[in-house]
């Protein structure tokens, strides 16, 4: 925690307000940014500038994502016909070229990063490039004589498709062994092949349109993106958790101005506030709640049991050594591990399917077609989730067992998240999962807090009361799944996807410290390039998905992140870094 946060005592009124605001900023953003902001200044120019290009794509596509419906004001092109109950999907015609240009930049950044990574990492990225771009390697064309794009386009696309990962690997090998000029020549060739793969699609698209035919390229690209959709799930998960972190910061900051209240006033206001909250939630829809409790007793019990279970765990872990700095440091690894673990079965499935499709596209392989036809998506994801989360649970338990401050917090976080996810996954597999209404969790939690306040009426001091208030506020902000951002965005005419965009920006500002780390497998210089490249690629796909209205996967993934990761992470933050003392400690005396 910053020492400046304490320097607000006994100041004139105006400066006191500024000081309070500063403390609030510290709680919401300042502290997190110092700890976790993406920093590129320490990297060499050959990493920094391409990373900035990646950031440029991210910035442009974040804006595009928030205003994605504006694209649809113009002409649309069909990318998917109605099939088996799934609606037809259309892409705004102007989005196609912008997306292809962005893909060319993004893949250049990623492959440049791969060239600076370890050999296994470079090979993995090359493999991913082949798997993800297989459909683009054989663009469908009309056989029209005398049109270069139609005649040589497919050949150029295929050559570029195979040459690109080879050049990336060559670059990796040449970077430390061959003269700089060769390295730069290979880098230029890499950029040219990536550009060729994508711009050939544009040329074919343009020529097809010019001849009055419907271009197959938008549908082809959409098919590619459909296969890659799983890729952006971790991004949405991370952004969802970013929103939760932000909400936590806001909750802590919101109570700062009230630290000057007397104990009685603070406790009274808190009790009244909690009671008012309960009245507002229940009283405005008494019949609805009564009907819900009557018709959904098991879901009601689940919500109560959830609050009770986390409270019990909180009491249990009080015995463990508490280190707020360690909790701060552990938040990022727990978040990213959880996000990756939650997305992993989907990503693995995506890679299997894309590989199978690549086999079909490149070699007309019947094996590939068999895999695509026979893979049991539901079973793969369900069983995959169980396996992955059992491994995460085991890893968490092991870290917990080591009992070092840092690993203890990571271990506890992972155990909580894994246990929570497993209970849902297994329950859902049994087809008896009763559901969990977050509004009810908020209600139960608020009622419990009110009970706590009443029981400890005389013993609760201002700090304690403000801590409880912050908890109540956080519970509300959290259980609305980022609606507070959505509602704010809606006031500005923005779509609900603003929540995802906000979470992502927050993750970049406050949750990207791992980029400055280093390891043999994942060297420091490759990290910003691969991380920003991944984010840019995911955003390009997410933006396409949003603009085509091809299934609101972003919203689905966001809800999943809140339920699966958000609930246990919020509980973990409450247990290990509660606002009870902290908020008060940071306020004026």
């Amino acid at each position, binding site marked *: 925690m910053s020492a400046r946060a304490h320097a607000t005592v006994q100041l004139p009124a105006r400066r006191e307000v500024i000081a309070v605001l500063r403390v609030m900023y510290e709680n919401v953003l300042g502290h997190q940014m110092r700890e976790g902001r993406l920093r590129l200044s320490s990297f060499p*120019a050959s990493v920094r500038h391409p990373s900035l290009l990646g950031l440029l794509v991210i910035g442009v596509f974040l804006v595009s994502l928030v205003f994605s419906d504006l694209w649809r004001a113009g002409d649309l092109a069909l990318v998917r016909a*109605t099939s088996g109950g799934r609606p037809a999907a259309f892409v705004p*015609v102007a989005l196609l070229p912008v997306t292809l240009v962005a893909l060319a930049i993004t893949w250049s950044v990623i492959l440049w990063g791969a060239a600076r990574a370890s050999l296994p990492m470079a090979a993995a990225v090359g493999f991913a490039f082949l798997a993800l771009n297989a459909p683009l390697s054989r663009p469908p064309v009309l056989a029209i004589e005398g049109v270069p794009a139609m005649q040589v386009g497919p050949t150029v696309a295929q050559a570029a498709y195979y040459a690109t990962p080879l050049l990336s690997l060559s670059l990796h090998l040449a970077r430390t062994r061959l003269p700089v000029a060769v390295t730069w020549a290979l880098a230029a060739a890499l950029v040219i092949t990536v550009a060729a793969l994508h711009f050939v699609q544009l040329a074919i698209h343009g020529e097809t349109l010019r001849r009055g035919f419907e271009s197959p390229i938008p549908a082809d690209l959409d098919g590619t993106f459909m296969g890659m959709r799983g890729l952006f799930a971790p991004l949405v998960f991370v952004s969802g958790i970013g929103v939760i972190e932000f909400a936590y910061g806001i909750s802590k900051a919101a109570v700062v101005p009230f630290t000057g209240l007397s104990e009685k006033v603070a406790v009274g206001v808190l009790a009244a506030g909690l009671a008012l909250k309960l009245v507002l939630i229940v009283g405005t829809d008494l019949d609805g709640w009564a009907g819900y409790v009557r018709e959904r007793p098991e879901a009601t019990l689940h919500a109560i049991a959830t609050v009770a279970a986390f409270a019990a765990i909180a009491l249990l872990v009080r015995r463990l050594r508490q280190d707020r700095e360690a909790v701060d440091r552990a938040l990022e690894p727990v978040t990213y591990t959880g996000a990756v673990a939650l997305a992993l079965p989907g990503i693995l499935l995506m890679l299997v399917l894309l590989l199978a499709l690549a086999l079909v596209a490149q070699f007309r392989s019947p094996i590939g077609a068999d895999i695509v036809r026979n893979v049991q998506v539901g079973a793969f994801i369900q069983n995959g989730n169980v396996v992955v989360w059992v491994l995460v649970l085991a890893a968490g338990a092991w870290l917990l067992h080591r009992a070092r401050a840092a690993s203890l917090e990571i271990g506890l976080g992972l155990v909580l998240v894994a246990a929570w996810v497993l209970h849902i996954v297994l329950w859902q597999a049994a087809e008896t999962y009763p559901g969990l209404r977050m509004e009810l969790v908020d209600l139960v939690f608020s009622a419990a807090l009110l009970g706590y306040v009443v029981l400890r009426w005389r013993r609760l001091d201002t700090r304690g009361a403000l801590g409880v208030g912050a908890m109540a506020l956080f519970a509300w902000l959290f259980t609305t799944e980022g609606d507070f951002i959505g509602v704010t965005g809606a006031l500005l005419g923005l779509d609900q996807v603003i929540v995802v965009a906000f979470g992502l920006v927050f993750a970049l500002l406050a949750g990207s410290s791992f980029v400055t780390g280093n390891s043999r497998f994942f060297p420091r210089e490759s990290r910003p390039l691969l991380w920003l490249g991944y984010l840019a690629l995911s955003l390009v796909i997410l933006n396409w998905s949003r603009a085509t209205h091809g299934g609101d996967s972003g*919203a689905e993934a966001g809800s999943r992140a809140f339920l699966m990761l958000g609930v246990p992470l919020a509980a973990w933050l409450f247990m290990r870094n509660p606002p009870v003392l902290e908020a008060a400690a940071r306020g004026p005396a």
Partner: protein
Amino acid sequence: MRVSLPRWRVAVAWALTLTTILGVTGAAIRVSLPSENEDDLDRLYPRALGTAWTYATTTNGKPSGLAVSQVIGNALLGARQSASLIETRHEDLFGRGAPSRRVSYVGREGTQLLLYGQRDSEYRAVDPPQPILQLPARAGERWSWRGKSGKTDMGVSVGAVRSLDVEVLGTRRTACIEYRGDTVLIGGSGNPITILFTSVLCPGIGTVRTREDSEELKLVYEQELIGHSTPAGSVASGRVAFPPPSASAAQRVLTGTRAAVGELDTGRPLWTDTRRARVAFPPVGTGDWYIVAEEDGYVTATERATGMLAWRRQVPRPIVVPPALTGNLVLVADGAKALHAIDLRTGITRWTKRLADIVSAPPVVADGHVVVAVEDRTVRGLRLSDGEQAWSRETVTLVRAAPVLAGGRTILAEESGRLHSLDPATGARAWEVALDDRLVAGPAAAGDLLVAADDEGRTHGFDAFTGELRWSTPIRASEAELAVDGRIVALRLGRDRIAALDARTGRQLWQSRLGGPSRRAPVIVGDTVVALTDDGRLHRLAIAGGRAAEPVRLTSPDASAPLTVSLPLALLDDALVAAVEAESRWQKTTLIALSTTSGGSRGVSLEGRVWPVPERPWMAGTIAGEELFVPARDGAVYSVRSDGSSTRLMSGATGTIPFAVPAGGLLLTQVGSELLALDRATGATRWKQLVGEPVLATSPAVVGDLVVMPLRGTGLVGLDLATGTPRWIHRQTGSGTSSPLLLPGGDVAYAVGALVRLDARTGTIRWTISDIDVFGPLAFADGLIVGAGFIDDASALFAVDAETGKERWRQPFEPGALVSPAAGAGTVVAIDERGAIRALELATGRHRWSATLRGPAAGPPVVVGDLVAVAEHGRSEDLFQRDYRITLHDVATGRLAAAFEPPGTSFSSLGGFGGSADALLAPSTSFGPIVLSLRIAR
């Protein structure tokens, strides 16, 4: 090592990089956007799909009804000339008391808009293409054209006279152009007919006024625009005489129920309808019509009773949601953000509403308003009368599920699971509730119960009038529609289970496994829940207990193609309609209607088979065993085997080869004026005989070891089958082109100059009736010979007692070219030159039923048992057409039994469809010329 570059160099590098990226992106956008170089030609004659013009007409100063022109599709003439297909309908053309329909092919080449041809009953190519408009479009410009339209010599001279402002549909239009000119027609008599014309065309609209004046025809014909509709919107003056659309509540196809399960268990269909294109949505319909939307934007309206197509038209592809039917309007949402209201009976656009985005859910109609959800996350209320927007509401997420009507309100469900009950007239919200999670199934309503299922694994029942939760059951419905009636809620679980919940309490009553994956929701028919598995099996589960009856297997005509089912079942009045799809090269979707009442199922399924023919055939040919013998236009006769291989039995013929008739080990055919008997195995000529010039649709009759063959201009000859030696000659001449008809007992009948019955062995005349000429084969059934042609110099359909030679009856009739009548099951069926089918009682000649094809017949009707098959030719000049169509009807009532669209086109304007009781044969194209054989599977 870190290299530090000067700041200015970094700035320049970044400036260059960003400039390059922006430049490339700008260029890429420019390349990718469709060309929008609309010029005067496009503005003065808009040809966007769906554009319609309605005119009030007068003939010689007297009102002569409405004339409506409409762009109904895109055509491809020949190999490369694309054109717009413009249909013009007149209520009362030139005041003659009869409606008319004509399609014109109009396309653009450079600075000219050209007319390539026109079709009413037959196609008339315009050669060379006639410029109907050209650039520059300004006063003083003139052009002229001379050429042929079909067989008529024509000359047209046109000039742009002046530019003017015109009051059109209540709006002042500027920069309109008045054209004047004359058309000179030289018909068969050689006398020229001159028509003076004046037209006024306005930019963005097209022709607003025309006047045609001919002294020779004593005709002054005028048209004035009174309604105009484009994909961007519609304008109509108050004088449009359209009947007001009925303001009744919308018909929800899936909510109907029947008292009985009917004949679902027999598997015999009420009718089947096989389309060559993929059907995008289950059909919607009334008791009289059904509407089918196809993947490529075509919508068709079919008369249920006879299976005749009322209309077929295209909207910008694809159609995005199932069409909705209300009163006399069909609501179709296209892929260009427009909602079209189309007249159910005529296919004419009543209005078009351009929306901000694609329609996202099927529209519903209530209280005189169309409630439509749009992908810009709005729900809009449009006035049913003119499509104008009455109200709009925003939603948080998209509405994809079909809205339902309950208690006079529209209930919409957002993807997020939020349900809204709205007043359809004002958009006012009555209530709003949220499910626990994303919507996965529903909403569905029955009475005051509303049901929807969420992604959290719960199915909820609400009070549809108040939104109050009545029950919530932990059961995870799969993504699909729900079926609800007053007793149960039927839903799909997992991949292959159906569950039933008590509609009052939500309690689960039963679950039943289907034994195969099913992608779509069940429907409730009477006391049965009906579900369809993806492999085309129809499962029937009793509402009480879920007991399963033996499933019924549905089939598609291409038995070799994998079959799948992806569309939901539909209930059309008394029929449950399933759509099975086949991965076939020559057919895609078959609609199979099963009767839900008793005694209605007289339809048939068809089993098709493709015979690839090396060259375009003259006709369908003849099947003998596992071989098809077919004469082709390359002058050869081919034997095509069932495995697709073929042998050329004969070649080198020039001109028509009118038949290829197998007879024992020989194949009889005609080359030039010679009848040839070929060895069926080797093609070697066994014998040949002079018989005169060949005539299409004439063929020999084989009677034991004798061939009876018409001798053109002479009469009939009886030839020894083995040697070709003439055994007898019967001399009889006339203007007809009949074939000998084999009668029971070995006699033959022939009708050129006179109708005669002969002993085929000797040529001895049994009886004769003079002054009869027919132009195709005769028909025989129930002891009567039936023919169509001239009898006593009057065109007629007649029946003669085969035994006595006495005429039983005759009816005035104009037979179509080479389309002879067919008889069977106590009925005679004939098709006239305009494509009107007439079915008469065979014994008496009394009217039984009639129907009208949209164009000329592609061949004679074929009676197969109690069914008759007819084929309409379609528009063979257009490679995109799909009006080539075969329908089978109950011969006694005309009721539709099956409809089938062969792929491609029939080859000749003379048709070629034929067949026998064994198989119907249709020449066609599917990646090359084919003959398609269709067998009837009952």
